[in-house]
């Protein structure tokens, strides 16, 4: 029996060699690239699942729209963390799939990941969602695009304020950062534009995707007497379904969640990435230079508002549509003084205006009067 271990070991070696050879064969067979030539090849990278009813689904819907064009080859990867893994995913899309343009869609992909990979592939376009691109500081083949979704939140706020019985609105928010604060403030300002005593209760969960805490926050807000709720987290799914279960109204965010809350989903602030991605694809096909910064709101078609639920009354629809028309014509200024924050301090003096593109708004660190909550954690 003493010879037996040797035998086993030899068999093992043989087996390993055979497995290796088989593997190499597999490798060889797969080296050919079957993608049709002449197509615009676009790679999309998502930080969460494609079907999250939120941030990632909004981008996936945009990707699906361009993928339908017969001159586009679009591919995507979901749940890619904001670590070195996204660098490898970008490189893999360029090297193995021949991507010409990449859309790494999560905010945290830009610095340091895109900034590190883009200079290594100067012929590839790296277009990032988030508006962080700075001329002269960042690689020439990088760019960014973003939408003023707070405009849609303003409209949703009007609908929420108009439909609320108690005049108390709820907002489940991820983190007290400028983008989120701006949505909360616009929502509140929208509601107060038609109902000046409206208030918004805010709960910050501390993270972008914390479903359990989001459900707890929603329940807690309902218990405090709010009767319309919205949110700014990666996936509004839990907030919407919890609101529907509790029998209150909700307004959506990122994409259309009316399926999740058919009774209570009044309207919602949605991205319209399909338009942005179609425009980019067209520019690349025609060989036009791709702009480094693409930004816009309702007027530019980058954001939209969900169709109103049938329960939304005619009077409220009219008020919301009037504001929408004003945005569409470019005549709307949300941040027009006098505006106080919720501690009573005047943040925008009477006679001062901050238009949508004003950089001052990008570093917002206050909550407008009528918001119940604090930016301090």
């Amino acid at each position: 029996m003493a010879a037996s271990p040797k035998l086993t070991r030899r068999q093992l070696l043989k087996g390993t060699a055979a497995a290796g050879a088989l593997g190499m064969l597999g490798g060889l067979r797969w080296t050919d690239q079957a993608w049709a030539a002449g197509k615009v090849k676009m790679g999309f990278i998502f930080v969460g699942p494609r079907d999250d009813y939120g941030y990632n689904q909004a981008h996936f819907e945009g990707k699906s729209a361009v993928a339908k064009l017969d001159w586009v080859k679009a591919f995507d990867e979901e749940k890619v963390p904001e670590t070195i893994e996204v660098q490898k995913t970008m490189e893999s899309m360029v090297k193995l799939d021949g991507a010409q343009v990449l859309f790494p869609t999560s905010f945290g992909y830009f610095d340091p990941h895109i900034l590190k990979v883009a200079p290594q592939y100067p012929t590839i376009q790296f277009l990032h969602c988030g508006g962080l691109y700075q001329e002269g500081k960042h690689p020439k083949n990088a760019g960014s695009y973003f939408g003023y979704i707070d405009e849609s939140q303003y409209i949703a706020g009007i609908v929420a304020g108009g439909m609320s019985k108690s005049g108390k609105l709820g907002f489940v928010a991820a983190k007290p950062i400028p983008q989120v604060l701006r949505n909360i403030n616009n929502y509140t300002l929208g509601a107060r534009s038609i109902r000046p005593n409206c208030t918004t209760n805010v709960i910050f969960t501390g993270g972008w995707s914390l479903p359990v805490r989001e459900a707890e926050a929603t329940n807690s807000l309902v218990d405090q007497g709010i009767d319309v709720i919205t949110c700014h987290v990666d996936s509004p799914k839990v907030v919407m379904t919890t609101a529907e279960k509790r029998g209150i109204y909700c307004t959506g965010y990122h994409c259309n969640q009316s399926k999740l809350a058919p009774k209570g989903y009044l309207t919602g602030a949605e991205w319209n990435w399909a338009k942005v991605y179609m425009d980019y694809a067209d520019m690349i096909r025609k060989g036009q230079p791709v702009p480094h910064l693409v930004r816009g709101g309702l007027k530019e078609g980058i954001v939209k508002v969900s169709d109103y639920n049938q329960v939304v009354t005619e009077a409220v629809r009219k008020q919301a549509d009037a504001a929408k028309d004003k945005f569409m014509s470019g005549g709307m200024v949300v941040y027009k003084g006098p505006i106080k924050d919720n501690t009573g301090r005047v943040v925008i003096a009477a006679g001062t205006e901050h238009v949508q593109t004003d950089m001052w708004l990008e570093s917002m660190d206050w909550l407008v009067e009528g918001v119940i909550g604090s930016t301090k954690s």
Partner: protein
Amino acid sequence: MPQTLNKALEPFLIIVGSLMVSMVLFGVFVASAGADPFEVYQTMYRAAFGTTFSWQNTLIRAAPLMLTALCTALPGYLGLIIIGGEGAVVMGGLVAAIAALAIPTAPPMVVLTTMAVAGMVAGGLWLIIGGALRHYRAVNETISSLLLNYIAIAVLNHFVTSTFRDPESLNHPSTHHIGEANMIGVIPGTDLHWGLVLGVVACVIAWFLMHHTVFGFASQIAGGNVRAAQIAGLPVGRLILIICFLAGAAGGLAGMVEVAAIHGRANDTLNANYGYAGILVAFVARNNPLAIIPVAVLLGGIRASSGLLQRAHELPDATVLVMQGIIFLVILFSETLYGRFSRLQKQGVS
């Protein structure tokens, strides 16, 4: 000689056999999802090990797992199940970044050494909490180390949004950058940062410590039977604290590497679940530090192949999670096979 060979051969055969069974089960799963399992395996191979780029992709993902696996593997020698690797990574990364920012004018080598020491001490002290609660207060170490993860993440979020926040990090609260000059570079001729080497070296040192020193021997005795170890006069409490410190130090080092090689700052991306993936690695490697290296590479390869699976076969990312889950369950089941192969046992006796 045959005895030691058999000792190594039994787990080797059982683990390889388990992996084979897992592959068959996963193949059935893939087929039921409408994809050709052979093509899927070819794609996975191509994405994980097929080219130089694939290998680098795999190894770079394996690097942090080697260190975080030690967080679970080392306490395993004492019979402790510690799953606090995530917290150690987060604390290590945060404290390493703060340490670097405290000495802005020091030369890069000094900064990196300080960061490594600070990160390791922070991670080590973090896991010592779990070990101490276990030894002095009989608190279940698995639960406490798991809960410590959430506390660590909360501590990180608190400091990067307040005391140590770079005011320019508007929409992604982070600490200041540690400076490009202080970043860990890549291994010449590759795309891989030096974290991989640190991972391999740490695993080898851990193996030597646990299998070839008196300290390791004492730990194994204490892990086998605490009473017996105490009667024999072994300082069980001290062993627990030291092992937990070393385990946490490995995780802290992983956090330091994330900051110094990739991000340049500490922020919420430190919480990338490397700590949890490390538990799986330690488990499949049966807590053996040397076995951690190939298992981490295997898991890195599985993670690396996810992307191509999604793009070439339109399978969801969860596919590779299913594969990891199947491997985990089959390995768990295979635990019952040890000592059942009489051929191996008899040879062991002879």
